[in-house]
């Protein structure tokens, strides 16, 4: 019954928003977001200043931080959601009440949705406001609309990790196992897959054309200065394009990739070195239509894992 789920959700919500774990993640998110606006602002600002949109560089810094922290937020709320209750024996006490197993998992999900929405919204607005004040940048209605859209996608992204980690938590009887698996998957999607994907692409395509090696050896910053088609021969650019195609095909398995695809277009920042930072921002409707597949994947992913958690949890027997 929904009233039971809500009773559980209310308790769960109170527990979470009074937990150190949540505020630690929100704190780190805020700190890193604001700090990273300093490192990017001077680098990218010139490009955007020409377009009169320095604010976008602030957003892209925040979006990059969010891409790392939103999954951690989801995992922090989910990894012990079921396994923790199982470990402590509180699940038995709960299940001996006149309620359905559905109510327990529904209550958890409702509370998590509320907490994630709250935490992402609060920290995004806080990070944006602080950065705007610190850098003294003007904001338009369009910027605010982009931030709102960004918040929605970030909530869904964080929730996707929540759903995945909940699924693991439902299966396991030890929270430590559930945490290790969830973090492992996060590390894989956030760091390892992109490295593997370019390795695979190189393996498929063979080594890049020799002439560009000099450019490769330079540091990132200098490298960017060379990213002008006149410096690179067509041959090299073709290679890079094909490499990017293969790499993104592989990365399409990662939910992080789809999220970044959306936010990078929304805020106009480059996701790979060879790309140019866009000088003008793509309009919001175009962002949505261009990234429709990514958006669908972002939404379907949590639904699939929620459904799986639900099926497993409600069918499981607990002595």
């Amino acid at each position, binding site marked *: 019954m929904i009233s039971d789920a809500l009773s559980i959700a209310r308790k769960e919500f109170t527990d979470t928003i009074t937990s150190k774990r949540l505020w630690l993640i929100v704190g780190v998110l805020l700190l890193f977001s604001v700090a990273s606006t300093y490192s990017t602002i001077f680098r990218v600002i010139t490009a955007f200043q020409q377009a009169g949109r320095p604010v976008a560089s602030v957003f892209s810094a925040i979006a990059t931080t969010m891409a790392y922290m939103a999954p951690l937020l989801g995992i922090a709320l989910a990894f012990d959601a079921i396994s923790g209750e199982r470990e*402590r*024996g*509180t699940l*038995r006490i*709960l299940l001996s*009440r*006149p*309620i359905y197993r559905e109510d327990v998992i529904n209550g958890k999900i409702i509370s998590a949705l509320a907490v994630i929405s709250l935490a992402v919204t609060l920290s995004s607005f806080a990070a944006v406001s602080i950065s705007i004040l610190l850098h003294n940048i003007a904001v338009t209605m369009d910027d605010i609309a982009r931030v709102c859209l960004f918040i929605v996608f970030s909530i869904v992204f964080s929730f996707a990790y929540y759903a995945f980690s909940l699924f693991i938590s439902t299966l396991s009887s030890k929270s430590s196992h559930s945490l290790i698996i969830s973090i492992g998957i996060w590390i894989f999607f956030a760091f390892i897959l992109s490295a593997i994907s370019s390795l695979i692409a190189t393996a498929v395509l063979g080594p890049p054309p020799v002439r560009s090696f000099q450019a490769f050896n330079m540091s990132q910053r200098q490298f960017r200065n060379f990213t002008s088609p006149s410096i690179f021969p067509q041959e090299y650019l073709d290679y890079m394009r094909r490499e990017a195609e293969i790499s993104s095909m592989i990365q399409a398995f990662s939910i992080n990739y789809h999220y970044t695809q959306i936010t990078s277009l929304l805020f106009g920042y480059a996701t790979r070195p060879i790309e140019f930072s866009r000088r003008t921002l793509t309009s919001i409707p175009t962002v949505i239509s261009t990234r429709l597949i990514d958006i669908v994947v972002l939404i379907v992913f949590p639904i699939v894992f929620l459904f799986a958690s639900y099926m497993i949890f409600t069918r499981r027997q*607990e*002595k």
Partner: protein
Amino acid sequence: MKMDLAIEVENLVKIYGKGGSGIKALDGISMKIPKASTYGLFGPNGSGKTTLISILVGLILPTSGNAKVLGFDVVKESVEIRRRVGLLPEGFGFYDHMTALENLVFLATLDKIPSDQRKKRALETLEMVGLKDRANDKVSTFSRGMRQRLGIAQALLKDPELLIFDEPTVGIDPEGAAEFRNLVKSMNKEGKTILMSTHLLYEVGMVCTHAAVIRGGKLLVQGSVEELYQSVREAKGYRYELRVKSGIDMLLQEIRSISDVIEIKQNENHVTVLSRREIWGELLPLVSKPQFKDAVESLKPIEPSWDEIYRFYQEGG
């Protein structure tokens, strides 16, 4: 008769593991637990007590067989059962960061206790288990025995007509265990049915009106405590104890001449008589005879101990 049963179990089988590949925890158990009884469930570790209890409240599903609790089917109507049954599960825990009272009020919500009565009821149950003065302490500060008492309190919240306790006195000090037994007795007086599993044999003798012994998922015996006593007596003999002064050689001789008396043991002023049948009707007139009256201080039948009953049925009756 059916109306008077709180729990009725028919040929219950539980096999753990997928596709019936695993351990057979219950192997065709049938039981009848009368209303208003205090029913003791014993068996060694792994005999299936917790499995049986978990099926009764719908935490796990039976592999085959039927069970009805308060007239509700354990598979189809387990929520109705949990609405009416207070359970102390095995290996339970509480929310450590919350106080005892907060824990109980939260659980009372799920027990559908009206919001204006939750706190009052929670405090009442804390009082019943002797934790009232710790109501506002976090459960993380509780000792093992205190947690166990809190476990009993949560089972009492909805003031259920049937209470099921899985090893209720584990970790509780003797004083607390005695308090618990008194609580059980008084609840039984109110007409509630209590089913408890325990390892402490004497506990059953002290509070239970009925008992069952299970082993390896099979029921060895069930019945009222009197019936169990009776069957052990029939098999192992009837025992009587006399407290005597002196000069009782004549008396002992007369007792020995009663047919079916197997053994007489004297240990100073302590005499035990073992007989193949009930001889109370012959012993009593004998010791009341004028010539023995002064030599005999007391005479009483000795009930088989719970250890004996248990061992008797474990060895196959």
